[in-house]
């Protein structure tokens, strides 16, 4: 497994996520792994006990996980959101914008490329789940 890349101060969970069905059955579980076809909203009643949500990208072109992540952040989830699977360096900036703060790709990310990717976009056109103020807010002196 490649090294876990994280943007959080807390300790990572020491166990991987279980399936959504298993999680809903186990009242003490605190880590879950969602697949592209899972409804992220099923987790909303249980956000308080969750500390890790892994969102799996079986292939990088399946973008459902981007919506899953935003939906959880919009619902107030504050634990770790980790992108796992076929996660490539060219996606990580967009993933970060959708609320991911952990990355554990199948193939290791090149550290230099990773740094460039996160630093690249100095501004954004639209609000998302990362709290960045969009360009329109800067233009009109508002905060998002």
């Amino acid at each position, binding site marked *: 497994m490649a090294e876990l890349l994280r943007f959080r101060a807390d300790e990572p969970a020491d166990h991987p996520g279980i399936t959504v069905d298993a999680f809903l059955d186990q009242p003490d579980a605190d880590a879950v792994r969602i697949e*592209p076809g899972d409804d992220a909203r099923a987790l909303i009643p249980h956000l308080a006990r969750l500390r890790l949500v892994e969102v799996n990208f079986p292939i*990088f*072109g*399946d*973008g*459902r996980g*981007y*919506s*899953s992540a*935003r939906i959880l952040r*919009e619902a107030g989830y504050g634990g770790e959101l980790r992108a796992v699977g076929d996660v*490539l360096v*060219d*996606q990580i*900036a*967009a*993933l970060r*914008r*959708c609320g991911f703060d952990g990355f554990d790709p199948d193939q290791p990310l090149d550290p230099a*490329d990773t740094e*460039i990717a996160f630093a*690249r*976009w*100095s*501004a*954004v*056109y*639209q*609000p*998302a789940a990362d709290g960045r103020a*969009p*360009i*329109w807010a*800067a*233009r*009109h002196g*508002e905060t*998002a």
Partner: protein
Amino acid sequence: MYRYDDYDQAMVDTRVAEFRDQARRRLEGRLSEDQFKPLRLMNGLYLQLHAYMLRVAIPYGTLDARQMRALADIADNYDRGYGHFTTRQNIQYNWIKLEEAANLLADLAKVEMHAIQTSGNCIRNISSDHFAGAAADEVADPRPYAELLRQWSSFHPEFSALPRKFKIAVIASERDRAAMRLHDIGIRIVRRGDALGAQFWVGGGMGRTPMVAPCIREFVPIDQLVTYSEACLRVYNRHGRRDNKFKARIKILVHELGAAEYTRQVEEEFAHLLTLGIEPPAAELARIAAMFDEPLEPAESAAPDRSDPDFALWMDRNTHPHKLPGYISAVISLKPVGGIPGDATADQMRLMADLAERYGNGELRVTHTQNIVLPHVRQAELHGLWSALEPAGLGAANIDTVEDIIACPGLDYCSLANARSIPVAQRIAERFAANGRTAVLGELKLKISGCINACGHHHAGHIGILGVDRKGTENYQLLLGGSEAEDVSLGKITGPGFDETGIVDAVETATKVYLKERDEGERFLDTYRRIGMEPFKAALYG
């Protein structure tokens, strides 16, 4: 016209740097072709039969003289001295080298242009009415709304890997000059009392399963336009099919769920998104709209001298009424008989740029019918404009006639093609130019695609032609009765296909049926709708 501020400029510059880096990693072998493909596609770069093809975005089809000159320079410096204007109001270059693509994008960025999201599974360049801002029948200029959506959709993080490509059109009149209901989302700006709003039509498209979009919301308040769009996209991103590329467009989702259920899901998502404050403020829309609202100098209302019959014909066919007295919109035909529909040489592009400055306000438009519009021409000088077009091969007086054919690149360039489109278009135009029937046929929209993907809008032609592969030889099916205008409909196949000569004859046969059967004032399409397919079949297959 919209002008970039420092923010917009920084975004396109950043994109060039990002692409340069990706291309370098590909050339160094650090990215596989599989990994590079979605990245280059997000920048409009396709691998085709002979070379890379690059598609440049012309947002809502509007550009100025300086930008047109830059496109000409690109044609000279990176291609073979020409470019191809497309049905999506963009321009494509067919002979691009990967090593040079980043430099090309950098040249574009210098004139506030880019190739961002012109291909790939993302929200594509937004199209609009080519007479926007000039047409007498619009309730507002639709382009500020298209620009607002352009910015919202550019690098939208959540929608960077949609099930399939996503095309949006924005218009603002009852007349539809942008095939609005054949887009994934068609938006019509409408007025209710004093308030502007957006009518949403979702789930249209062409391709192998053509569908006409149903209306899912009659009136979205204009200050919720972006939020509603986001709701439409989120439902699609989450639930659009990903198991089969041919069923992945939003039209299939809307069709399978039913428009009512899709709408219910969108409304639910919309109610939620409204609580998040993602809509740009009214001040942003006002900032954008002000840039489209540059006043034109007053022009005297002088009707041009029509004593030259060639000029009078061109004026009748190639102009459109303007909302201001003294002005008129002129359409420059890129359909000379025997030419390649939509192609322009670098010199022609430069000339059109010069003429836009000399006879108008420097603005140009690309139409989805692959022609160029000068939207604001001083009427009194129309004759001068026409006189300059003629010697450059740009004077064809044939807009909306059988010679004004839409054709996709087909087998001459496209790796997906079954058959050639361009030569068929050339033969048909030559046939009617020679038999002199173009004029009597009046409005007749003929559209040709080289395969089922329908890039040439064949479903929406009054007469459509579809190239198919029949046991290894090129074969052409004939369709009748399509329209992409406000009277939208999908054409129906007449019967067995034809070979290249046969299809040209078949088109002529169909027009003869029309000439024989038509009532006073009827267009080809009207006659077809009245008398149905049978008389055409009888004539075609006897």
